[in-house]
């Protein structure tokens, strides 16, 4: 128990004194995960909506696959991205291994199925409501997807935030493709793993509390920016 108390105390001091290392790795965590979230959302939101409104032959299979991929093990994703980006791998010439870009690629792969799957669930219900209206107006599929995404934006926000939660707390994949290099690819989760390895539980916990606070902060910020849950509208 004393470890947890010490962790809280040192977390408090790290934050109050704006420890430069802490600020740097926290910003990098945000940079990597928010970029990954942005790219993954750009792919997954239209794709999930598309799956909800279009009927095609292998739709059921595509949806089952998507749901299964939600549980994609990050370590395996990390290993595959690592092998692809390694100098001896097919994309080695790009020299991307052990850079934040590699970490973003791995996280996009991990969270895209999650966001797409939640999007699909939410959009299916919305589509049932909008179906007759949009069909009768003779809209194109692009218009339908845009309308549904806009009107279902609250649900999509939940989908994206779930993806963000998975990305910011992820350690297995980014440890492998980022390498946890100080001042280059170290983020909060890999720093926690490192400090645990050194037996410095207080610092590891402190970083953990900062990570949790950051995740909560970002969630509140995004809700505030997009004005959800306000009186009179939602």
């Amino acid at each position: 128990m004393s470890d947890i108390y010490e962790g809280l105390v040192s977390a408090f001091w790290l934050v109050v004194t704006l420890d430069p290392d802490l600020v740097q790795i926290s910003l990098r965590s945000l940079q990597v995960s928010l970029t990954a979230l942005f790219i993954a959302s750009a792919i997954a939101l239209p794709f999930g909506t598309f799956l909800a409104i279009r009927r095609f032959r292998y739709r059921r299979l595509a949806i089952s696959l998507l749901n299964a991929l939600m549980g994609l093990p990050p370590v395996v994703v990390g290993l595959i991205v690592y092998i692809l980006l390694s100098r001896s791998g097919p994309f080695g010439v790009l020299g991307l291994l052990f850079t934040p870009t590699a970490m973003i690629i791995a996280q996009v792969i991990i969270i895209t199925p999650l966001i797409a799957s939640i999007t699909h669930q939410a959009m299916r219900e919305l589509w049932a409501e909008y179906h007759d209206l949009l069909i009768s107006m003779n809209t194109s599929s692009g218009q339908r997807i845009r309308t549904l995404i806009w009107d279902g934006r609250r649900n999509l926000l939940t989908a994206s935030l779930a993806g963000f939660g998975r990305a910011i707390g992820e350690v297995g994949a980014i440890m492998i493709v980022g390498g946890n290099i100080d001042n280059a690819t170290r983020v909060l989760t890999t720093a926690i793993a490192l400090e645990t390895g050194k037996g410095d539980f207080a610092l590891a916990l402190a970083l953990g509390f900062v990570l949790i606070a950051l995740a909560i902060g970002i969630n509140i910020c995004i809700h505030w920016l997009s004005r959800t849950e306000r009186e009179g509208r939602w």
Partner: protein
Amino acid sequence: MIPRILTMLVALVLGSAAAAETIRLAVTTSFENSGLADVLLPAISEDLGLEVQLLVVGTGQALRLGEAGDVDAILVHSRTAEEAFVADGHGTYRREIMYNDFVFIGPKDDPAGVAEATSAADVLKRIGVTQPDFVSRGDDSGTHKKELALWQAADLSPERFGPWYREVGAGMGASLNTAAGLDAYILADRASWLNFGNKANLALLYAGDAALFNQYAYLAVNPERHPHVRNDLAVKLEEWLTGPRAAQLINGYAINGETLFVFNAKPE
């Protein structure tokens, strides 16, 4: 509000700064955990204007990184594996830099009587008889290879051990955490042990046999195999690591008054 979020994101993406000259060096966990890197890296950046990016992995993975050309040089401690690395043409030669030593850690009450042992082989024989919990790195690292060589020298083979022999497949720190949790014996390098924060009921029980010396060597990745590696920087770094400033810093590095490393690079 969507454009506002977009602007924030774009700012974050573009925010990553570009660095000057950087070299990627794969090192072992025991080197990083010793804290010596925190002394050497600032001095290197001061003298050479070179930013060394450390990839902290086990010796096995460090060698793999070198073979794939994903790093410019490696600093590891497993002689036979290093010689195989050079023999296969992944590096051109190995340069010895410094050594420290391995120590046997175990529970303070020492059920196997390791503290009275006369040699490293004797330590393992005693453990083999009493069969207390023993944590092995099991990750193909330099420390793991050393441990296996020591078992062999004691005429024992870990494959035939019972469940008391626990291969955790983790780094030095994580393995020490496991040993602390189980009250088990473990072979660790002295530097990692001194810097380890969660000692619990463990103590240093045996050290000093010459068989426990731990030689670190520096290997630059062969530029003929991998034209993109920064061999010029790797050579520059090697010259610095074998020079007088490094000698002074390595020999002078101490934790709680105990020196950890002995510089033994020979001038070319």
